[in-house]
Structures are given as C-alpha cells and as structure tokens.
C-alpha cells in the first residue's frame, strides 16, 4: 500500500530526488528540495519549446493548451514496487540528484555517484543532477560537458528559481518524449506485463494461452497509464475502454479493475473543473465496481504470498478521499470502517500502518476528530511494535497529535491553537469567568480511562524515542490531571520518571506543562503603607479629600460606579517597595515534593520576583509568602508562578487551578487537590488590577520612648513625642496632620509647625513632633473591667481601639521625579500614615458626688460698712494669697458663703494630690471697673492629698463670681426671659433660657480647675463639669447675681453722724477699740447695755432702676425672739423701725438712722428687710416670681451685735 493515494495518483509522474555528493547541510537540502518541490504541475504549453516531435506522437488528443504533467517528488527515492507493471504510476520515471557543490568539489565523483544511484532505478527514463552553488573552478570545469549534471550558477534566489523552472520544464519535455517512445514501442512490439498475482511457477499450456489472450488487454491498459502520465486523458480513456473490454472478455479481473480505475482517473482529469452530481455518481459507481473487482480477484491459493486486499483498500480509500465531504459523511464512514476492518487481512505491518494513517487522515478531514484520534493511536501502537527509536519518535508524534482530541494536549500546543483565548493577565476583564474552552476541557477530562492510556503511551514512546522533554511533559500531565486515579506506587513511579527525564535535560529547561504542586492565589498580603495610597486631587489644596475611600468600607455607594471594572479591586504598588503575595501550594500525591524554587511570574517585565524554595510532605498544603519588588511604572499582571520542580521550570497559572477548583465544586473533575490536602475552601480570589506607580515617600512613625501604650490616668496631660522618618527614596514635600478615631478631643495640641518646618523631608530625614494628650474620661461603655486585678477591686481601663489616631497625609512633589515615558499628566499619588496614639487610660480619681454648700456668716456691726468685694482695693484681702487659706474676717461684713464640695475617691494604687484653682478672667464690666483686680487670677488653695483607697472632700469657694450690678444685662441676653413674664411663655423662650443658664453654668465651671499630681511626672486635670453641673443648676443665679438690695448696718457716731463716708474720721476712744491704719473700728463688745446706740441702716440699690420700698429693721435675740416688739421687749428704740418708705436711686445708697437701747447684754442680730413696691421685671426675675402682683420681699444679711454690760 502506498500513502497519500487519491484517484489522481494514476496521472502522477514519480521522480526520485536523491542527494548526491558530499553531505549537504540540512537547511540547504531542504531549500533545494523545496525549490524543486514547488514544480508539481508543469503545463504542456510551457514545455513545447523543449519538446521535439521525433515521430508522430501517439498521444493524438494531447491538450497542448490546457493539459499538464504532474510530478510527484519522492525525496530519498523509493524501492521498486512489484506492482510497477500493473500501475505505471508506481514506477520511478525520473531521478533528480541534488548536489551541493561546496561540499563535493570533485564533479566527476559526483557524476559517478549519481550514475551509481540511478542504477537502482531501472525504470527511470530521465536523469538529471542539479548542482548548486558551484565554485568558479567548477564552473570552468563544466566545460567538459558532463552528462546529466546541470550547474546552477550562484545568483539571487529569483534567478535560481527561474533556472530551476526551466530545468524542470526541460525534464518534463524529456519525459514526454520518452513516454511517446515507450508507447510507440509498446504498440509496435508489445510487452510482457506481469504482476505478482500471476503464478510464475507452473505455467501450464492452458495458462499460457490465457496469458496470451490477456496480454493485449494489459498492454492497452498500460498504454492508457502512459497516456495519463503524459497528460492526455482522452487518449488514455480510449485505451482504457479497449483494455476494459479485453479484460472482461478474458476474465482478467484484476486488470479489469485496474483499467477501470485508470478510466476514472482519466474521466476526472478530463472534467477537472466540473463537479456535477452526475459525474460523482459515475465515479462512485465505477469505483464500487473497482472495489468489487479487486475483491473478486482475491485468490485464496496465493493469499499467503500476494494479496489484492491492499488494492481493494486503496480503492476504498481513494473513493473515500474523493467523497470526503460532510454531506457524505455516512458513506465515507462506512467505506473507512470497512477499510479498517480489512486491515486484519493485510499481511504487511507497514501496509496496515499506512492504512490506519490514511483512515485517520480522512476521518480528520471529515471532522471526526475522535475517530481520527482512535486510528492515530492505532498507528502509534503499530509504530511502538517496531522496536526502534525512529518508530518511537513517529509514535510519539502521532500520539501527540491525538492528544488534542482526548484533551490531554500539552499546553504549548494548545496555546498555539487558542492564542486568542490565551491572553495572559487579569487585565482583560474576564478573570472571574471561565473560558468556554476550559469548561469543555473540564467535561472532557472525564474520559480519564482513555486519557490516561494516551498519556501513558506518550510517556512510554517519548522515553523510548529519547525525548526527555516530551516524556517530562507527559508525566507531568499525567500526574497533575490524574493523580487521584494513580496508586501511590504509580505516583512515585511518575515522580521518578520526571526526575529521570530531567536528568537528561539541560538545567534550566522550561516546559509548558506544569507538574506539581497545585498553586492558587491565597491573598495579597497588604502592608498598610500599600493600602494607604491616596490619589491626589491637583485642584484642591487639601489634595487628599474626595479621592480616598473615607471610611472602613471598601465599597461605598458613593464611589464612582458604572465603570467596567467596578467589581475589580484596584491595587497600587510602588516602585522599589517590596510587595508580598500569599499563595497556597498543595501536594496531593504520596511522595515528598521539593520545589526547588518558586516565584511570581510576571509578564509585564516590571517586577523582580524573589524565589523561595519549599518542601511539601505528602498530602499537604502550605501557604507561602512570595515577594518581589516592582521596578518600573506600569500595570503588573501576575497570572501565576514560575516553579522549578522536578528539574524543569514551568509556569503554573492561577487561572487553571481556579478552573479546576470550580470544576471540583461542580463535581466535574476528579478531586480538589487542596481539599484532599486538608486545606479549607477558599473563596475565589480575583487578581486585582495592579498598577505600579513611581517611587513615593514613605513615612515611618515611632513613638519616642517606645511604641507601647502610654498609660495615663483619666485626665492626665502628657506630651507624646512622635518621630516620623522618611524611609522612601523621594522627599516628602507636603504633609498634613489630622485626627480621627475615637476620643479626638483628648488631643490638646499637635505641633503642626514642627512638621511644616521640617518639609521637605529628605529621604532618611526624621522629624519629631510633640502631641499633647489629655487622657479622656472613661465611661462605662468604653472601658472594661480589669478583673485580673486581685482583691476584687474593680479597676477600669480603656478598651483597645479607643485611642485617637493621627492621620498624616503626605506626598512627594507634584511631578514625576523619574523620566519614565509616562505621558499621562497624572500626579503621583500621596499617602496616608495612620499613627495610633496608643493610650491606655486608667481610672484615676473618681467623683463620688458634688454638692453646693451654702452658709451665711453674720457680720459684726461696727462703724464701717461691709466692704463690697467688687470695690475691694485693699491688699489685705480676705483671701490672702500668702497662706492660701480661706479666712473669714468677721468684720468684713456679712458673708453669704457658697462652697462647692467635691467628694473624690481614689480607687487607684497611687497617691493623688489635688489642687483646686479658680481662674478668673479680668473682664471689665461696663463701668470700666475691673470686677477683680487680681493680676494673678489663680487662687491657689492648698493641696489635698488623697491616699489610695481613700476618699476626700475638696471645697471650692464660689466667690468672686458675683456681678456688681443687677440689671437686665444678665437677662437681656435673652429678652424673652423677661418678656415671658408679661407675654405668653413660649417653649422656645424657655428652652433658650435653659440653654443660657447652662451656658453660664459652664462658664462658671470652666473657671474652676481641679488639677492633680501623682508621682513624679503624672499630672492632670479632673473633669468636674458633668459632676458639678447638676449641683449648680439650682443656685447659679444666687452665685452669679447680686441681690437687688444690699443692706448694711453700722454704728453712727453720737447720732449726729449723717455722712455715710465718715469712717475715716471716726476716732474711738473706747477701751476695746483698735487703731488700724487710721481706721478706727469699734472692737467687739463696744456696744454697752443701757446706753443709747445710734445706728444706721444702709440700703444700696444694685439695680439700674429707682426702687421704692418700705424698709423694716428687726432685732432678734439669740433665741430668735423679736426683741423690739411685744410685752417683753428687751430692746428699746428711737426712730422708725418698721415700714419706712424709702426711695433708692439706682446704684446709690440711702441711709436710715435709728437708735437702739439694749436692756439686756448679750448677743443680738439685726436684720433689715424691705418690701419692694412696683418691682420691675428684672427684680421679679431675680426673685424668681412670676406673678405680677406678689410683693417682692428682700432680706439683708444678718448683723451680729454684741452688747456688753450688766443686766
């Protein structure tokens, strides 16, 4: 059997092409052969110039205009076939030698060799030797005119090709003339034509006669063959018709079939252009006849020696090839399956090989890939039966071709096939989807029985063929795809064959097919410095606003949606800053796997990956960290990893494993390599779009004195020094500090200026900035009970994460520092550094309660009036700064003392010292009079020490707060308040009144500072605001506002003292009197019983309005009895004491004199009170009355009177 047969085979002239002379370099030989091989169809019209008609041509109907000769070049020649006589096309009709002159200098020798080579081809009618690239000497030598050697002078390709064409045309003409000669001779003399079918041994007389009869028919058939070869189908047809007739008559079945076959060929050549169904039917009909005839010619007796089966099968193949179209698939399949069945009756193994090859090819052409693969595999098996390397190579190659149909192809092959699908990298927007191709391959991978067999055979054949890379690849595919179906021993065997193959490969060999381990992307290990990259908004001064995801959510509905890759994460890497990617490796096999090196595979070429070596015990999975450094600006795609394992470098794509895992979840593939290694299910990690940006500055922060949490007691104030270092390669040119997180108000100050002055911060530069913190108050919510402390003492400390954060936005320059070809006018992004102010707040001093204490200390009466505080210019103040004690001067006047009592307890285990101070502002009132003339407004009270687990009370005097004048200004701030009395009270007004009240309370409290110290360097301030507010709420007006009327008593001199300002001139000569700085003050006990004592009551109007009132003065004894009235009055009086109508002008004083006569010595109390007539709104508000009719009663402070003497 012959390969590549078709119906037209009968018209092809076989030309043996032989390399002659010295060894020709491979590529040269290939080039020469290709140059020759292009000329398979030589038009008759083109050879007419070379053709000389010696005799009358037997080809009467030669189509000189349209016809052609067909050449078939047999590179390397072919052995003579025993069937040459039967089908002339099987003869080698010409020999062409190819000679490369530089390697064979002696042309004579070449000629000799060529002649010797031609000896083997007795049927050759023409011989030529083409010598290429002759040297000059050889060209000169050519003068000798060697027969058959044609020198191709060195020239350009085109000329050589033209030369070759000419030579081929010459050859064709020669052959045509030879055919004519042969036919003429055959017609005239006749020839003996024999086939192996004709029995040679016993030529009985009967058979001799038969043979003679048949000879004519056979001769006609052969002439027909030659006519076909000469390109004259009409002549051929005529001869064939005769031959068919004769063969039928003589019963020469075999030759009948041959002639019929020839006639079909002639018919097809004649109607080469038309393809009508009628012709097709005719061809089909004739060929089925041919097949029948060949089958009939099958002789049982010589079946052992020769068989016509091969002709029958060849005819079937020819017909199949002719019909090979989709529409006729069924017929073709039947023909081919019939032919395949016939393979068993073929004797020669190589015939079977050719048959299977042809069947496979035809099935392939038909689109029946699986059948083609099946027969290819049969071919491979036949090859493997031959025990030599070449056959093994052939087997390997054939099997490799089948691997596509079985979906076990090497990735190198498949990547060629589907380059469009094989776009690497995730930036193509289809990372999450499966390729339809790969889905199919997942399904097809279930034909594991067949696939494993094919892979095993590929492995076996490539080992035998000595192709270690193919063997490695096959073993890798087998192991990777079918490890669950392979026994542990088999797995180890594959591993060792991988290792063995690798030994024969040069180090660093790459293979397209990955073996083990399975690698999937685990996650991107993100350093915070990577996430905190913020796009700069060049339009804004605060460039970080509006561009960064502000908040803890990756997705916000307000971030720009609608972009195509909205589901894709974006990631930014920075040139020169190492990045880390976590991948998970799995070794589901039962042997120890050593990965010599594994690193990220980056196709974009702007990334330096660092290799790692891993060893994986059997059935284990491991997550490893792969790192690298981006080197250039641009997108980075990480499709997978490069693995050096089993001695070969392979690329493992994440996508493949993702598909595999997806298939595993759907139950389509055999097993999930990760799950069988005990690794959990991992959500599908999509590879984000990674882009590399130019180098950015990188600030690294640390807290001076250690990064540990600073332990602070509640309210403690401390400076934290934060040092920022630029660890990048680009200077920081912009920086901004902001606060975020919880308890932001605990940061009192940040040294912005220090940072600003340090800019630009050069690489390696460092700046240290202080941040002043005041530890916040622990609330029940954000604290937790530190139960670890023994003794049941419940100490509270702040929870984690309640510390404030410093957010530093910083960036380099606005322009790209490097001259990368980045044409887009984008600014390099900035960064954000979040420095947590690690503060651990411990519970400090604790408030138990606060309350307001109010006490009245009556003044002693004397000749002076009590000095109002606000006019106190006396340096000898009641509250002296020197000793810081609250001193009560009994002569100062009546005191209405209000004290804020704070009860503090110390649950901690340190000692606190509490220091209360009152901060007073030097605000001037509208009279331009300073309310207080203290330059240093701090009243330093003595420190209170509170030991651990003790409580203490701290008293804070609430003085110095009173306003000098009661007027509308306090209320006028909210005029509604006063209006409310006459108009409807509106809710709004009430609310605002309340707010006003609160504001004034806050104002008051903020002036009081409770500072504490503990240990050497802990100090802080107690937040008393919340605690004191309720305590003060009720009486803030009393604290802040003066009474509308102030009453004072004093002794009048001899009753003649009318002038209220005569204190200075009073000189007392009473024994207990004292002289102090010219101030004559009557000492205690200066009032004697039984003596008329002149007194004055002074009423001061603290308001801005005239007040009309009726004043009453009462005198009480120690028992509280009124002494001036009733029957038992112990005090006699002169003047008016009750219902004295008085009119006090605004901010003025009015005196009223009277005299008392004490009958009994002892202690008395003088009280002045008045009923205000026609009170104004201000007064009403002060008196907290809301009925307009109610009289306003105003009472003064009591004055003590000591009366001495004897009863």
């Amino acid at each position, binding site marked *: 059997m012959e390969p590549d047969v078709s119906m037209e085979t009968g018209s092809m002239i076989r030309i043996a092409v032989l390399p002659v002379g010295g060894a020709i370099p491979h590529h040269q030989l290939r080039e020469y052969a290709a140059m020759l091989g292009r000329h398979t169809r030589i038009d008759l019209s083109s050879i007419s110039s070379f053709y000389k008609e010696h005799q009358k041509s037997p080809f009467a109907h030669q189509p000189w205009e349209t016809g052609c000769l067909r050449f078939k070049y047999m590179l390397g020649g072919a052995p003579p076939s025993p069937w040459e006589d039967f089908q002339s096309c099987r003869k080698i009709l010409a020999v062409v030698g190819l000679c490369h002159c530089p390697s064979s200098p002696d042309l004579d020798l070449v000629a000799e060799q060529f002649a010797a080579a031609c000896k083997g081809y007795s049927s050759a009618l023409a011989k030529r030797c083409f010598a290429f690239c002759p040297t000059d000497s050889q060209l000169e030598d050519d003068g000798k005119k060697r027969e058959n050697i044609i020198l191709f002078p060195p020239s350009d390709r085109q000329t050589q090709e033209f030369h070759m064409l000419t030579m081929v045309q010459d050859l064709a003409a020669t052959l045509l003339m030879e055919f004519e000669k042969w036919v003429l001779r055959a017609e005239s003399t006749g020839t003996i034509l024999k086939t192996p079918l004709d029995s040679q041994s016993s030529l009985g007389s009967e058979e001799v006669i038969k043979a003679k009869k048949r000879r004519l028919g056979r001769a006609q058939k052969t002439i027909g063959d030659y006519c076909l070869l000469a390109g004259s189908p009409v002549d051929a047809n005529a001869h064939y018709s005769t031959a068919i007739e004769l063969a039928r008559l003589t019963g020469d079945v075999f030759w009948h079939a041959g002639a019929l076959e020839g006639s079909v060929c002639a018919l097809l050549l004649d109607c080469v252009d038309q393809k009508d169904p009628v012709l097709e039917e005719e061809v089909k009909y004739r060929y089925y006849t041919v097949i029948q005839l060949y089958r009939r010619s099958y002789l049982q007796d010589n079946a052992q020696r020769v068989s016509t089966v091969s002709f029958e099968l060849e005819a079937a193949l020819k017909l199949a090839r002719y019909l090979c179209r989709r529409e006729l698939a069924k017929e073709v399949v039947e023909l081919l399956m019939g032919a395949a*069945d016939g393979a068993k009756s073929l004797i020669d193994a190589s015939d079977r090989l050719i048959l299977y090859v042809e069947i496979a090819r035809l*099935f392939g052409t038909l689109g029946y890939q699986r059948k083609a693969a099946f027969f290819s595999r049969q071919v491979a098996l036949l090859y493997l039966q031959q025990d030599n390397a070449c056959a093994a190579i052939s087997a390997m190659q054939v099997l490799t071709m089948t691997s596509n149909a079985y979906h076990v192809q090497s990735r190198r092959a498949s990547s060629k096939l589907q380059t469009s699908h094989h776009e690497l990298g995730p930036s193509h927007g289809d990372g999450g989807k499966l390729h339809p191709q790969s889905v199919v391959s997942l399904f097809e991978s279930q034909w594991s029985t067949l696939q494993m067999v094919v892979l095993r055979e590929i492995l076996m054949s490539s080992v035998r063929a000595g192709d270690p890379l193919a063997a490695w690849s096959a073993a890798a595919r087998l192991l990777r795809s079918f490890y669950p179906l392979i026994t542990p021993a088999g797995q180890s065997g594959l591993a060792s064959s991988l290792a063995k193959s690798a030994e024969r490969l040069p180090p660093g060999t790459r293979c397209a097919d990955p073996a083990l381990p399975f690698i999937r992307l685990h996650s991107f290990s993100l350093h915070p410095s990577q996430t905190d990259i913020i796009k700069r908004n060049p339009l804004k001064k605060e460039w970080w606003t509006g561009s960064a995801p502000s908040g803890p959510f990756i997705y916000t509905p307000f971030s720009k949606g609608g972009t195509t890759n909205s589901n894709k994460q974006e990631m930014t890497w920075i040139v020169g800053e190492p990045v880390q990617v976590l991948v998970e490796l799995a070794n589901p096999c039962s042997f120890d796997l050593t990965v010599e090196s594994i690193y990220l595979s980056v196709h974009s070429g702007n990334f330096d990956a660092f290799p790692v070596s891993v060893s994986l015990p059997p059935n284990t999975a491991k997550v490893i960290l792969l790192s690298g450094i981006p080197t250039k600006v641009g997108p980075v795609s990480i499709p997978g990893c490069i693995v050096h394992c089993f001695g070969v470098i392979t690329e493992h794509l994440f996508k493949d494993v993702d598909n595999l895992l997806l298939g595993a979840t759907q139950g389509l593939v055999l097993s999930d390599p990760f799950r069988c290694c005990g690794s959990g299910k991992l959500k599908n990690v999509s590879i984000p779009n990674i882009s590399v940006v130019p180098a950015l500055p990188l600030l690294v922060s640390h807290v001076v004195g250690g990064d540990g949490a600073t332990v602070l007691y509640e309210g403690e104030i401390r400076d934290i020094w934060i040092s920022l270092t630029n660890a990048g390669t680009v200077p920081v040119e912009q920086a901004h500090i902001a606060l975020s997180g919880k308890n932001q108000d605990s940061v009192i100050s940040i040294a912005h200026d220090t940072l600003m002055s340090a800019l630009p911060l050069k690489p390696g530069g460092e700046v240290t900035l202080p941040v002043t913190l005041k530890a916040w108050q622990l609330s029940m919510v954000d604290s937790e009970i530190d139960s670890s402390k023994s003794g049941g003492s419940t100490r509270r400390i702040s929870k984690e994460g309640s510390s404030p954060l410093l957010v530093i936005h910083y960036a380099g320059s606005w322009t790209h520092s490097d001259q990368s070809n980045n044409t887009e006018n984008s600014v390099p992004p900035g960064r954000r550094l979040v420095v947590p102010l690690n503060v651990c707040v411990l519970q400090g001093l604790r408030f138990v309660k606060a309350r307001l204490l109010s006490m009245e200390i009556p003044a002693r009466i004397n000749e002076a009036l009590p000095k109002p505080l606000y006019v106190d210019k006396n340096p000898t103040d009641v509250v002296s700064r020197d000793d810081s004690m609250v001193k009560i001067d009994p002569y100062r006047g009546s005191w209405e003392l209000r004290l804020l009592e704070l009860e503090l307890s110390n649950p901690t285990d340190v000692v606190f010292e509490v220091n209360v101070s009152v901060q007073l502002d030097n605000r001037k009132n509208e009279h331009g009079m300073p309310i207080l003339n203290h330059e240093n407004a701090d009243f330093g009270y003595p420190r209170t020490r509170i030991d651990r687990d003790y409580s203490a009370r701290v008293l804070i005097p609430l003085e110095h707060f009173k306003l000098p004048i009661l007027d509308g200004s306090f209320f006028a701030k909210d005029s509604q308040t006063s209006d409310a009395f006459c108009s409807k009270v509106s809710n709004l007004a009430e609310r605002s009144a309340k707010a006003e009240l609160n504001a004034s309370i806050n104002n008051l409290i903020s002036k009081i500072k409770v500072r504490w110290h503990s240990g050497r360097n802990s100090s802080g301030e107690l937040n008393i605001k919340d605690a004191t507010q309720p305590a003060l709420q009720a009486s803030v007006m009393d604290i802040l506002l003066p009474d509308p009327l102030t009453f004072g008593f004093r002794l009048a001199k001899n009753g003649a003292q009318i002038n209220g300002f005569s204190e200075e001139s009073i000189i007392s000569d009473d024994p207990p009197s004292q002289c102090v700085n010219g101030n004559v003050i009557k000492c205690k006990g200066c009032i004697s019983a039984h003596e008329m004592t002149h007194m004055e009551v002074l009423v001061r109007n603290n308001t801005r309005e005239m007040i009309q009132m009726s004043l009453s003065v009462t005198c009480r004894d120690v028992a509280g009895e009124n002494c001036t009235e009733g029957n038992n009055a112990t005090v006699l009086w002169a003047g008016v004491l009750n219902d004295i109508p008085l009119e006090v002008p605004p901010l003025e004083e009015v005196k009223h004199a009277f005299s008392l006569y004490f009958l009994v010595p002892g202690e008395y109390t003088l009280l002045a009170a008045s009923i205000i007539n026609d009170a104004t709104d201000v007064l009403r508000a002060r008196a907290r009355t809301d009925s307009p009719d109610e009289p306003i009663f105003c009472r003064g402070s009591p004055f003590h009177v000591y009366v001495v003497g004897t009863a």
Partner: protein
Amino acid sequence: MIVCVAVVGHQNNPLYLQSFTEADDALKLHHIIHCSLDVIDERINNPKKSGPTLNEAFLGLLYPTENYKVYGYLTNTKVKFIMVTTDLDVKDADFFRRFHAAYVDAVSNPFHVPGKKITSKAFAQRVSSIVKSFGSAATT
C-alpha cells in the same frame, strides 16, 4: 447481545458507562463510545430537517465497527445514550426509551449533581435489567 451502554452528557462528558462482557475490553469499549460521539456530533450539527425525523430522538445505527454495531439516542437536552451490540438489530427506540426513563429517574434524585457521573446503584441495576431483557430477547 448488548455489550455496552453509555450515557454521555451534553458536553460530551461520560455520565455512565457500563459494559456487559466478561472480557477485559473496557478500554476498547471506551474508545468505541468515544468515537461514536463524532457521529452524534455531526447529527447534532447537521440535523436532518425532514418531517418524521424532526423530533426523533433515536439516531439509529451510528456506525459499524469490527464486530460491533453502535446505536445512538439523543435527547432534547443533548444527552446521548449509546448502545454497543454484537448482533442485535435495533429497529426501534424501545430499548432507549426505557433507558432514558431510567436516566430521568436517576437524575431526578435531588442529591444528584447535574454533569456529574451517575453513581446510583439503583440506576445500574435498572439498566442491567433492561439490558438483560433485551439481551435475552435477542438470544431467543
């Protein structure tokens, strides 16, 4: 007798393959089933639009190979039923209809994952009983 039956999914993935011979020719039968998909694929791609065969699931003889004949049956969901027989001349789709019914019952199992191989023992038993009934009919 029936040598082998197979169910092949719409992606040409084998769902069920069972041979009924004692001989160790599983690989050969795999190949035969696999190759028969070529023919079915072509029938799918070039459906004959003629009236009676329009809704006909039975594909008839797919191809003869060596001593076997391969018959096919194609459902609307492109699930293929393939039977390999030695001598049985299958004229109608009766066998395939019963086979199909068995398959439908098997994949109606809520625990069956579509596209996965059928591992149900009940299905295997039912198929083998169907095969037996036809095999015995052939021998008589």
